[in-house]
């Protein structure tokens, strides 16, 4: 332990010996710039992933499950990409930690900054959703031309038959059931042909051969009982 009166003497001696050097101003400018750039990049990555979540929920048809009563909601919860959302959350936490290096970052309560990030994230990812970016990347992935993010994008087309979810084109309409078939020549895991019994009260007359449908169903043995059917617009 140092005597009190030696503190100043020691420090000045260290400075004069050159053992303690003053960092140049540019060091601090560059550090602040790097933190700012890192924060900006993190924000862009978070926006990209968040908009991907919206895109994948829409593109995979998982969003239609919300229209299919409680059972549909339960299936929606199991199919929602929670892990990806957790990554966005982790990025926001990291971003918040970076922003706390700046005075505006620590003068505001953490929750308020987080809410701001959430608003920026939602608005930014919605705007990104209006661009053809994800559709373009998905088509690249389908053609095997997206090495880095290919698997991630192709997971949108994963089969969810184990959860009772089917997507396909109507190939046959019988008095008490209809048949759909799916073949999009991608990873093949979601391809097949299924005969489906519609829910009570569903008018099979609404369906036409060639319609694309999204079906949520309970599977009992070999029989598929739909509890929700959504006829997709022609361009989906």
């Amino acid at each position, binding site marked *: *332990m*140092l*005597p*009190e009166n*030696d*503190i*100043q003497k*020691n*420090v*000045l001696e*260290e*400075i*004069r010996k050159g053992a*303690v*050097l*003053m*960092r*140049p*101003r540019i*060091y*601090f400018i560059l550090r602040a710039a790097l933190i700012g750039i890192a924060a900006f990049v993190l924000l862009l990555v978070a926006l990209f992933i968040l908009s991907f979540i919206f895109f994948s929920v829409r593109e995979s048809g998982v969003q239609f499950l919300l229209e299919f009563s409680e059972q549909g909601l339960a299936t929606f919860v199991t199919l929602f990409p929670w892990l990806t959302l957790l990554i966005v959350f982790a990025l926001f936490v990291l971003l918040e930690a970076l922003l*706390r290096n700046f*005075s505006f970052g*620590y*003068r*505001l*309560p*953490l*929750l*308020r900054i987080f809410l701001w990030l959430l608003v920026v994230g939602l608005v930014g990812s919605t705007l990104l959703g209006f661009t053809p970016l994800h559709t373009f990347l998905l088509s690249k992935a389908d053609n095997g031309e997206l090495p880095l993010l290919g698997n991630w994008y192709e997971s949108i087309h994963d089969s969810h038959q184990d959860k009772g979810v089917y997507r396909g084109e109507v190939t046959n309409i019988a008095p008490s059931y209809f048949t759909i078939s799916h073949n999009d020549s991608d990873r093949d895991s979601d391809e097949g042909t299924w005969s489906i019994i519609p829910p009570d009260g569903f008018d099979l007359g609404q369906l036409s051969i060639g319609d694309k449908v999204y079906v949520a169903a309970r599977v009992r043995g070999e029989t598929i009982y739909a509890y929700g059917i959504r006829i997709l617009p022609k361009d989906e």
Partner: protein
Amino acid sequence: MVHRSATNVSFSGVYYKDMEALSQKTDEELAALVQGKNEDAFGVLMSRYQPKLLRYGRRFLLDVAPIEDVVQEVFIKTYQNIQEFDTTRPFSPWIYRIAHNLFVNALRSNSRQPFIAVDLDMFSAHAAYEIDPAGDEEREQMKTLIDTGLSALVPIYREVIILYYVEQLEYQEIAEILHVPIGTVGIRLRRAREALKKYVTGE
């Protein structure tokens, strides 16, 4: 914060007159001179802040670490990073911030008690925080409580009590030192006062 002191210490054989001129300068003026590599100006700054930082450190660290060594490290870091200081802003919170960081590090490495820097009060906005400048009577009352029960407080409450009642800093300055919103300072102070009173009265 403008700080003038009559301290006259010769650090490198400079004329007493020069030292007197330096000692008349504000902290911020001295910091600007240090940025221009004026070591004597740094000496004057050190003599101004050494007693304060030792007092702050002793009360905050409660002898878990050799405080003189930590304060020496504070001055070294201050010198190394002085170019980061914006001379249009007050110097005091800036050097206290460096001290806070090093004291927290010392506490973390030397204490068995974990230091939790983030509390729930940092998350939400405290729009209704009170800036209630403590009167003489309250300060006197708190002095007794601090002498008796400061060591019983958790570090984040202990620190805010020291900075406000012992170092007599403003809420705004404390917020800048701790890097928390000003409302959080108010809330922590209120909780710390309550905890201190509770401990001392044995409720």
